[in-house]
């Protein structure tokens, strides 16, 4: 048995209850948001790690990474030896007006030259300013947070097990060698 008008009263009750509760609005410019770990804000570059392998530029689905480089020859250290050549990075730029934040470049980089930073406040008035050159990408590196701690009970990281195995192997090969 329902009386006519109960729906109307319910509607009024819902809105009144809402009014007495705290609103859920995030006061963004006054209070910064709490971003989850591994937030994809902006991509940072450690130029020293980059070998100009071009993997990131080729894998990028949006084609927003621009890389220029040239080859440097390192003269042979021994006489009659062969000259070595080395890639030198001239330009590394990411156009964030095209980037779709898929994270493929960060994952594909074999030398950990690219990292995600949670910084997101880099809007510009001119779209051309959104192309960050390598100096600017290097600056973002300071804002990259430390890696998230492992879950309790997680496997020991691959790097540590590999290193431990290497140590064991070395001890088996030369067990009686005294430490120098």
């Amino acid at each position, binding site marked *: 048995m329902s009386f006519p008008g109960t729906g109307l009263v319910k509607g009024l009750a819902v809105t009144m209850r809402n009014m007495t*509760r705290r609103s859920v609005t995030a006061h963004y410019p006054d209070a910064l948001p709490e971003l989850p770990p591994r937030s994809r804000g902006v991509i940072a570059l450690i130029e020293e790690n980059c070998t100009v392998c071009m993997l990131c530029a080729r894998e990028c689905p949006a084609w927003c990474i621009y890389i220029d480089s040239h080859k440097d020859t390192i003269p042979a250290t021994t006489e009659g030896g062969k000259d070595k050549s080395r890639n030198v990075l001239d330009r590394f730029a990411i156009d964030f007006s095209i980037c779709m934040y898929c994270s493929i470049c960060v994952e594909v980089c074999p030398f950990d030259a690219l990292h995600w930073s949670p910084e997101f406040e880099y809007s510009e008035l001119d779209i051309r300013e959104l192309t960050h050159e390598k100096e600017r990408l290097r600056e973002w590196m300071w804002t990259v947070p430390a890696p998230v701690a492992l879950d309790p009970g997680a496997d020991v990281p691959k790097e540590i097990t590999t290193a431990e195995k290497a140590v064991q192997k070395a001890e088996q090969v030369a067990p009686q060698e005294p430490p120098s």
Partner: protein
Amino acid sequence: MPDVLEALLRVVIVMVAFLVLPLVVGQVEHKAMAHMQARVGPMYAGAFHGWAQLVADGVKFVQKEDVVPAAADRHVFKLAPAVALLPYLVAMLAIPIGPGLVGQDLDLGLFFVLAVMGAGVVGTLMGGWASANKFSLLGGIRVAAQLMAYELPFVLAAASVAMAAGTLSLIGIVEAWSPWWLLWQAPAMVVFFVAGLAELQRPPFDMPIADAELVFGPYTEYGGLRFALFILAEYAGIVVLSALTAVLFLGGWHGPFEDQLGWLWTLVKIGLVAFVVVWVRVAFPRMREDQLQRLAWQGLVPLALFQLAITAVGVVVMTQ
């Protein structure tokens, strides 16, 4: 000379109330509606919780270009906002806040106020017709239909109180009021409030300006200051409706310490009714045009007539 000064003073006070109260209602609507929807509403204008938002809006409206559509009926188009706004100013002049605290005490106060409030709708109608826009015209026609439907229960409900009090003077009605009228005149109060909402085209009765189908109804072609005047008219209408409801049905300045704080009681009651206007807007969805008409003719008119009969019986019983 003192008579002239006193009249001048009363007019100035009414004018100030006319300019301030609608803004207060508007600000309450901004903030209350926001919190009812789990938002915070304006926060920046005026530094403290956006108290100056409507002032900022006003400044913005003044700066805008005054556009009149080429095909519009220029003079009617330009006159419409004033016709919509002024009746509420005139109505405010006759509504008492306390014993003697009234712009102009009229013997036919109730009759005058109702007549003037009906005239306010003509401004919207003029705007709808003169804009030379199909949406405006449809909105204007809906305004007219709504006015026809809701004016009748509106006046009947007011007539019930006038009959109970035996006078058309608003001050006389408040003086005749006693608390048990809250029960006796309850149906009339509901009818009066609902019909008044519909006459102001406030949600859920905002079919004439239904933005999903009519863009903005009669106000579609308006912008800048003229648009602001229409909006101000809407809020002034809320104030007048709330004041009338408070004076006719809630006993105006009756309350504890009414000798000293009578005017405060009236203002508190007006504020409460205005809050309910905002509350109803947030809580209920817009009614369809046919539902609107059915509510008026099959719901409110019979209810108002029923109330008239009850009042008549009550008056006859009491006078014997």
